[in-house]
């Protein structure tokens, strides 16, 4: 099945994402985020990305710190108990990035509208809040003439590329999470034009055929597969490894001082471009 070989090396990963791409990054908060892939984007000095991150933290903070992000389309961005995401916070406060804030579910609705090929997806979520008015061209209130019922319309949002992290994948693109905890990731996979999967391990196709009910994502929905051992670090890849709490603490401490942070980031992630270049 050489015809189906979809494997790309991690070092070539960034070439799959052009500057300015609308990129959806999977994972949930401290969990199962394609961090190795994000590091490659930082190394490659990607610019002007429009990042879709439903509930994220470290991945978004890395990409913002390195100046890769023009716009962040998000539901929530934080380090949870480890505090606010420092570079996201600074950039947002300084106007360094354009923040397009949705709620979790309205953002999922926008992705589902793209999947279904419809102009918008209706929901009761967000009614009566200040969120819809942030982007009236993307989310607007409507009233159903027949029932008189109000709803929020969420315009279709189709990422150019979605990248998610899984436990195992094969050359056909089949992907498996152990166990099958897919979070929002399948919504990103279904909606995006192209899909990249990073995996802890590349396994033989025969292993998928031996337990087909455990496959999380069908190969035909995946365009590229990248082997990335511990590819979710410092986020968790449950049940294989936990998030690295010490890294979050050290990161926060370093983030208090620009020089300390540049050194820390350069040591643990990748060299930061000098501010002039950002």
């Amino acid at each position, binding site marked *: 099945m050489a015809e189906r070989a979809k494997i790309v090396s991690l070092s070539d990963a960034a070439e799959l994402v052009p500057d300015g791409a609308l990129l959806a990054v999977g994972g949930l908060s401290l969990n199962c985020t394609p961090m190795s892939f994000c590091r490659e984007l930082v190394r490659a000095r990607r610019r002007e990305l429009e990042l879709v991150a439903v509930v994220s933290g470290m991945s978004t903070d890395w990409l913002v710190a390195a100046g890769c992000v023009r716009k962040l389309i998000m539901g929530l961005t934080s380090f949870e108990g480890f505090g606010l995401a420092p570079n996201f916070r600074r950039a947002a406060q300084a106007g360094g990035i354009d923040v397009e804030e949705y709620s979790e579910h309205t953002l999922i609705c926008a992705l*589902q509208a793209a*999947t279904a090929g419809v102009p918008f997806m209706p929901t009761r979520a967000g009614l009566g809040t200040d969120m819809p008015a942030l982007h009236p061209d993307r989310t607007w209130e409507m009233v159903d003439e027949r029932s008189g019922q109000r709803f929020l319309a969420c315009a279709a949002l189709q990422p150019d590329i979605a990248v998610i992290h899984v436990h195992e994948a094969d050359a056909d693109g089949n992907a498996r999470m152990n166990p099958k905890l897919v979070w929002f990731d399948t919504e990103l996979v279904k909606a995006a034009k192209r899909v990249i999967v990073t995996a802890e391990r590349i396994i033989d196709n025969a292993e*998928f055929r031996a337990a*087909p009910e455990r*496959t999380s994502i*069908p190969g*035909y929905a995946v365009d590229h597969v990248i082997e990335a051992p511990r590819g979710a670090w410092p986020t968790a890849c449950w049940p294989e490894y936990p998030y690295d709490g010490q890294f979050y603490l050290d990161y926060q401490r370093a983030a208090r001082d620009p020089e300390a942070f540049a050194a820390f980031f350069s040591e643990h992630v990748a060299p930061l471009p000098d501010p002039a270049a950002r």
Partner: protein
Amino acid sequence: MSNWTIDELMVAALARELPDDTVCFNGAVSFIPVTAFLLARATHAPGLIWVASSIAVDPRPDRIGESTLSDALWDGAAMLQSSAADFWSYAQSGRLNTFCFRGAQMDAYGNVNNTVIGSFDAPKIRLPGGGGMADLGCQVPRILLWSTTHDPRTFVDKLDFRSGLGWGDGGDHRARLGLPGGPRACVTNLAMMDFHPESKRMRLRSVHPGVTVDQVVAATGFELVIEGDVPETEPPTDEQVRVIREVDPTDARKREFG
């Protein structure tokens, strides 16, 4: 003398319409398409992905069996797509790009009826219903039609009910509805048809060995587009026949005849 039968010719003709990037799936009573998927995958289209019963991704069954929705087709699958919601997502997004239809009635634009013969409220014959036809006809970019009963009762000028969309009213109707692709070809027991690029009316592409153009015209309840000399349908090669009998050793494909 030929060493092939009409079902094998239809399977081979349908298989030729399936390129290597095909991601296809099947519904009920689809023995000819399922055999064609297996033939194409085993010969010219090794990259073809077939989702058996819309559930089992890329399976390796050793026979086809008596239902094209049954688990007999699922052996060796790489994934069992567990929920209809997931399936519909991929069918709508275009990842699943190919589906084959047949209907109790078909018209010149490749629209199909599987709902009623007669009026909906007082049908002469109540058929099973459109099922997924209305969904897939609208949303799957590559549609292939087949019929084992090429006669004026099946190929009609006007459907009693439009269950599934082909090219609609023809011309740019699908485009005006904002829908992707459309029907590409129709394989029957008499001939091979495609669709005129502008009018989107069914066009006679070839007649099967031993069948005349007049026979096809007489068996068709609407006016076929006929341009110049109509060639003979290429019969299946010995290799195709061998593979067909290998992937369908129990002749399940013949269940669609008589």
